[in-house]
C-alpha cells in the first residue's frame, strides 16, 4: 500500500501540470469570438448582430425541455508571412453537439451533428486541418457553428486554438488520451473486473463485498460507456440516458454500501434507504419524461453529494477507530472521488466559484470523476485482492498448523493405543489370574467338602476303632471315586456332557458287578450343557451319593436314573426298589444332609421319598442360574 501514495501524487502532477497553464505558447488561442444565435447553414454576414463573447462560452437553455438552437462564433487569426502554410490546423478541445468549421467563408470541416435519427455527443477533442489554399497571409476569419442541443441543459463552446499541426497534435493527443482512450480502457477493465468479482460472488455467496465490488465496477463501466459511445440512435436515446443515470446513481449507492460493509457496519435500514434513493432518480425520469432530464440530473445527482459526505464522515471515523491501513486507503480514495465528483459538478454547471479560482483549468472542462473513480475501483479491487491473498496465505498457515496438529494427535493416539493395549494385557492377565484363583478355590472347596471331610471323619472313626478294614477300604474307594469325579468336572476341556459320560460309565460297570439292573434315561438338554464345573460337580455328587446308597444299603435289584429338563428346571431322579431308609439307619446321617446342602448350593431342592418298597431321590435345580461365569467362559473359549 505504500506505493499507492506516491503513485497518486505522480499521477496527479503529470496530469495536472501541463494543464495548469494553457497549451503550448506557439499556437494562437482565440479567447474571444463573436457569437450569434442562428441556425443558419452558412456563416451569417457581419451585419447579423454579432456579440463579442469571451470563450469558453456556455449558453444555458432558456427553459427545460426546449434546448436551444445552433450558434455561430466568429473570430480571426493571424498567419504570419513567413509561416509555413502547408499544415495549419484548428483545435477544439470539445464540441459536444458537433458542428462546422468555416475558414474564410469555406467549409473546412464538419463534425456530425444530431439528426432526427441520431443523437450525438462528442467527448473527444477535434483537430481539423486547415487546407493551405484557403489560408491567407495575414488575417483569416474562422467561423464555427455549434449545433443545437435539443436535450441539453447548456451548450458549450471552448477556446479555439489555431496553429501548426505539429504543435497542436501533442495537445490533441493528450486530451484524446484522457478524454477518450482512458474511458475506453476503463470500460474494458471494469467489465473484466466486474465479471471476475461477480463470478467469485456467485460461487461464494457469503462474500458480499466481492458482489458489491463487482456491481460497482459494472455500473461504472456502464456509465463510462455512455461517454465512450458518442452516437446513439434516437429510439434508444432515452433508454441510454436512463442507463446513464441508473449507472451514476447506482455507482454511488453501491459504493457506499461496499464501504460500510468493508468497515464492518451492517445497517439494513440505511442500505434499504440507499437503494430507494437509487430508484427514485430513474423512476422520476421515467415518469416525468425525458424533458426533465436536466432537472433530474441536477437535483437527484446533486443529492448524492450529501450522501457521499456522510459516507466520508463514517469512513473517517472508522479509520480512526479501527486504524487499519486498508480502511485508510479506501477513505483516501473516497475523498479523492468525492472531491472529483464535486469538481465535476462545478465544472459541468460552470459554477462561477470555480471559474474565478482556476479559470484556465475550468476552461479545459476536464472531468476528474472518471479517473478518480478508476483510482477508487483500483483501491477497492486492490483491497479485495489483498484480502484474497491474505486468506490464501492464512489458509496455508492453517494447513501447516493442521498438519502439525494431526501429527501430534496421531502420535498421542498411538501412545494411547499402546497404553490401552498394555492395560488390556494387564487386565487379561488379571482375569486369567482371577480365573486360575477361582479354579483353585473350586478345587480347595471340593477337597475340603468332599475328600477332606470324608478322610477326616474316617480318621476319627479308625482311631476310635469303629472302622474295620472292609469299611476302611470302602471309604477309601469312595474317596477315589470323589477324586475321579472332581478331576473330571474340573478338567479344562470337559463340559457337563463329558463328565456325565464318565460318571455313567463308571456306575454302569459298578452296578453291573453288583448285579443290580440299571436303567438310564439320560437326556441332556442344550442349556444343561452350559453348566459351570461347580454346578456339574454338585449334581454328580448328589447322584454319586444316591447311587452309593443304593449300592451299599438298599439291597435293590433295580435302579433307574433319569435326567430330564422341564421348562427351566433340570431334574435328576434316582429310583430303586430296595428297602427304604427306615430299614437302614446308616443311610440317615450326613450323607442325606450332604445331599441337601449340595442341592441348596445349586439353588435347587432335594426330595427324598423313602418307603418299604423303595426310595426315590429327586433333585430339581433351575437352569437359569447355570449361566457360566464370564471369566471361565473366556477360559473355555481360549
Amino acid at each position, binding site marked *: 500500500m505504500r506505493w499507492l501514495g506516491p503513485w497518486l501524487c505522480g499521477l496527479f502532477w503529470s496530469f495536472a501540470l501541463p494543464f495548469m497553464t494553457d497549451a503550448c505558447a506557439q499556437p494562437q488561442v482565440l479567447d474571444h469570438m463573436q457569437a450569434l444565435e442562428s441556425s443558419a447553414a452558412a456563416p451569417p454576414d457581419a451585419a447579423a448582430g454579432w456579440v463579442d463573447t469571451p470563450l469558453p462560452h456556455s449558453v444555458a437553455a432558456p427553459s427545460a425541455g426546449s434546448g436551444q438552437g445552433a450558434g455561430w462564433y466568429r473570430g480571426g487569426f493571424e498567419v504570419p508571412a513567413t509561416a509555413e502554410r502547408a499544415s495549419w490546423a484548428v483545435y477544439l478541445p470539445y464540441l459536444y453537439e458537433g458542428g462546422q468549421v468555416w475558414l474564410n467563408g469555406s467549409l473546412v470541416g464538419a463534425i456530425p451533428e444530431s439528426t432526427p435519427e441520431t443523437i450525438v455527443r462528442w467527448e473527444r477533442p477535434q483537430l481539423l486541418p486547415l487546407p493551405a489554399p484557403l489560408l491567407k497571409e495575414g488575417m483569416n476569419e474562422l467561423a464555427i457553428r455549434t449545433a443545437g442541443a435539443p436535450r441539453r441543459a447548456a451548450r458549450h463552446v471552448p477556446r479555439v486554438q489555431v496553429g501548426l499541426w505539429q504543435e497542436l497534435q501533442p495537445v490533441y493527443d493528450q486530451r484524446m488520451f484522457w478524454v477518450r482512450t482512458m474511458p475506453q480502457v476503463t470500460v474494458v477493465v471494469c467489465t473484466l473486473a466486474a465479471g471476475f468479482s461477480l463470478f467469485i460472488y456467485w460461487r461464494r455467496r457469503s462474500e458480499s463485498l466481492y458482489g458489491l465490488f463487482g456491481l460497482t465496477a459494472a455500473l461504472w463501466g456502464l456509465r463510462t460507456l455512455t461517454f465512450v459511445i458518442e452516437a446513439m440512435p434516437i429510439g434508444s436515446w432515452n433508454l441510454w440516458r436512463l442507463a446513464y443515470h441508473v449507472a451514476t446513481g447506482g455507482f454511488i449507492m453501491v459504493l457506499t454500501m461496499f464501504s460500510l460493509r468493508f468497515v464492518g457496519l451492517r445497517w439494513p435500514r440505511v442500505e434499504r434507504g440507499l437503494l430507494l434513493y437509487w430508484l427514485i432518480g430513474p423512476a422520476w425520469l421515467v415518469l416525468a419524461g425525458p424533458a426533465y432530464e436536466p432537472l433530474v440530473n441536477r437535483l437527484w445527482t446533486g443529492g448524492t453529494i450529501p450522501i457521499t459526505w456522510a459516507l466520508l464522515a463514517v469512513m473517517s471515523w472508522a479509520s480512526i477507530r479501527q486504524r487499519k491501513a486498508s480502511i485508510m486507503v479506501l477513505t483516501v480514495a473516497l475523498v479523492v472521488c468525492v472531491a472529483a465528483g464535486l469538481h465535476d459538478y462545478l465544472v459541468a454547471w460552470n459554477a462561477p466559484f470555480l471559474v474565478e479560482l482556476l479559470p484556465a483549468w475550468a476552461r479545459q472542462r476536464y472531468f476528474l470523476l472518471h479517473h478518480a473513480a478508476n483510482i477508487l475501483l483500483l483501491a477497492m479491487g486492490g483491497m479485495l485482492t489483498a484480502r484474497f491473498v491474505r486468506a490464501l496465505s492464512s489458509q496455508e498457515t492453517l494447513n501447516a498448523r493442521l498438519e502439525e496438529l494431526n501429527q501430534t494427535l496421531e502420535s498421542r493416539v498411538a501412545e494411547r493405543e499402546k497404553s490401552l493395549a498394555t492395560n488390556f494385557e494387564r487386565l487379561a492377565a488379571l482375569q486369567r489370574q482371577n480365573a486360575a484363583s477361582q479354579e483353585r478355590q473350586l478345587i480347595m472347596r471340593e477337597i475340603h467338602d468332599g475328600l477332606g471331610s470324608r478322610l477326616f471323619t474316617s480318621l476319627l472313626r479308625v482311631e476310635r476303632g469303629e472302622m474295620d478294614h472292609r469299611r476302611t477300604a470302602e471309604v477309601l474307594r469312595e474317596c477315589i471315586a470323589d477324586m*475321579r469325579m472332581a*478331576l473330571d468336572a474340573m478338567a479344562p476341556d470337559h463340559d457337563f456332557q463329558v463328565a456325565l*459320560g*464318565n*460318571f*455313567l*460309565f463308571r456306575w*454302569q460297570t459298578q452296578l453291573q458287578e453288583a448285579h443290580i439292573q440299571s436303567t*438310564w434315561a439320560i437326556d441332556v438338554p442344550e442349556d444343561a450343557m452350559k453348566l459351570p464345573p461347580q454346578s456339574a460337580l454338585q449334581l454328580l455328587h448328589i447322584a454319586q451319593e444316591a447311587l452309593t446308597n443304593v449300592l451299599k444299603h438298599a439291597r435293590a435289584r433295580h435302579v433307574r436314573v433319569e435326567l430330564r429338563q422341564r421348562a427351566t428346571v433340570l431334574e435328576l431322579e434316582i429310583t430303586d426298589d430296595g428297602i427304604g431308609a427306615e430299614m437302614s439307619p446308616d443311610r440317615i446321617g450326613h450323607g442325606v444332609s450332604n445331599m441337601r446342602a449340595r442341592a441348596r448350593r445349586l439353588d435347587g431342592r432335594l426330595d427324598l421319598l423313602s418307603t418299604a418298597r423303595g426310595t426315590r431321590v429327586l433333585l430339581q435345580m433351575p437352569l437359569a442360574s447355570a449361566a457360566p461365569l464370564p471369566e471361565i467362559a473366556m477360559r473355555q473359549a481360549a
Partner: protein
Amino acid sequence: MSTRVLIVEDEPEFIRRFSDAVVSDPGLSLVAAVSTGQAACALLDLQRPDVLLVDLGLPDIPGVEVIAHAARYQPDCDILVVTMFADDEHVVRSIEAGACGYLLKDASAGRIAAGIHELRAGGAPISPGIARRVLARFRAGVKTPTPSQPAPLEASPLTARESELLRMIAKGFTFDTIGSLLDISPHTVVAHVKKIYRKLAVHSRSEAVYEAGQLGLL
C-alpha cells in the same frame, strides 16, 4: 493251558496285589513280576508270556517302550496297561504303541483276573475318555498335503460306524445299549473296538513313518 501273565510294576504294593490276583485264579499263571523295564524286555524275549501287565511309571525306561518292544517282537502277546484313571492320556499312547486295553489300579482281585480273561477272549476295555481321545487322535492324524507328500496320509481312517461307536462310548453308553441302538450284538461292538485299537496303532506307526519321511529321515 492257563494264561501266562508277566507283570511289570515298580510299586511293591501293587506287585503284591496283581500277583495275588493272578495266582489266585486257576486260569492264570504268573510268569514273573519285575519292577524295571529292562528286565521286562529281557523276560519278554525269553519267556514269551500271553499277557503283559504294564505300569507306565517305570524307573528306568518308559513303559511305552516296553509296550512297543512287546508289540514288535511278541505280536501274539496281549498288553494291558495299568492306570489310575480310565481316560488317561498315557492309555491312549499305550494303545498307539500297541496295547490292547487298560486295567484300573484300584480294581479288585476278581476284577483283575476277569479283565485278563476278557482280554484273552477278545475283549477290549475302553472308557468314554479313551474313546474321545481316540477320536481326537484320528482327527489330528489327517494331515494337509505338502509339496513332498501330495496326498494326505489317510483321508478317514475310521469308518462312519466306527466313529459313531466311539461317540456313543464317549457319551457313556454301555456296550449293550450301543448294541441295541446300532442293532448289533455287544460282541460285535467289542470287535469294533479292537479293530479301532489296531487302526490306532497302525495309524500312529504310519504317522511316525510319515513324519520321518517329512523330515527326510527315511
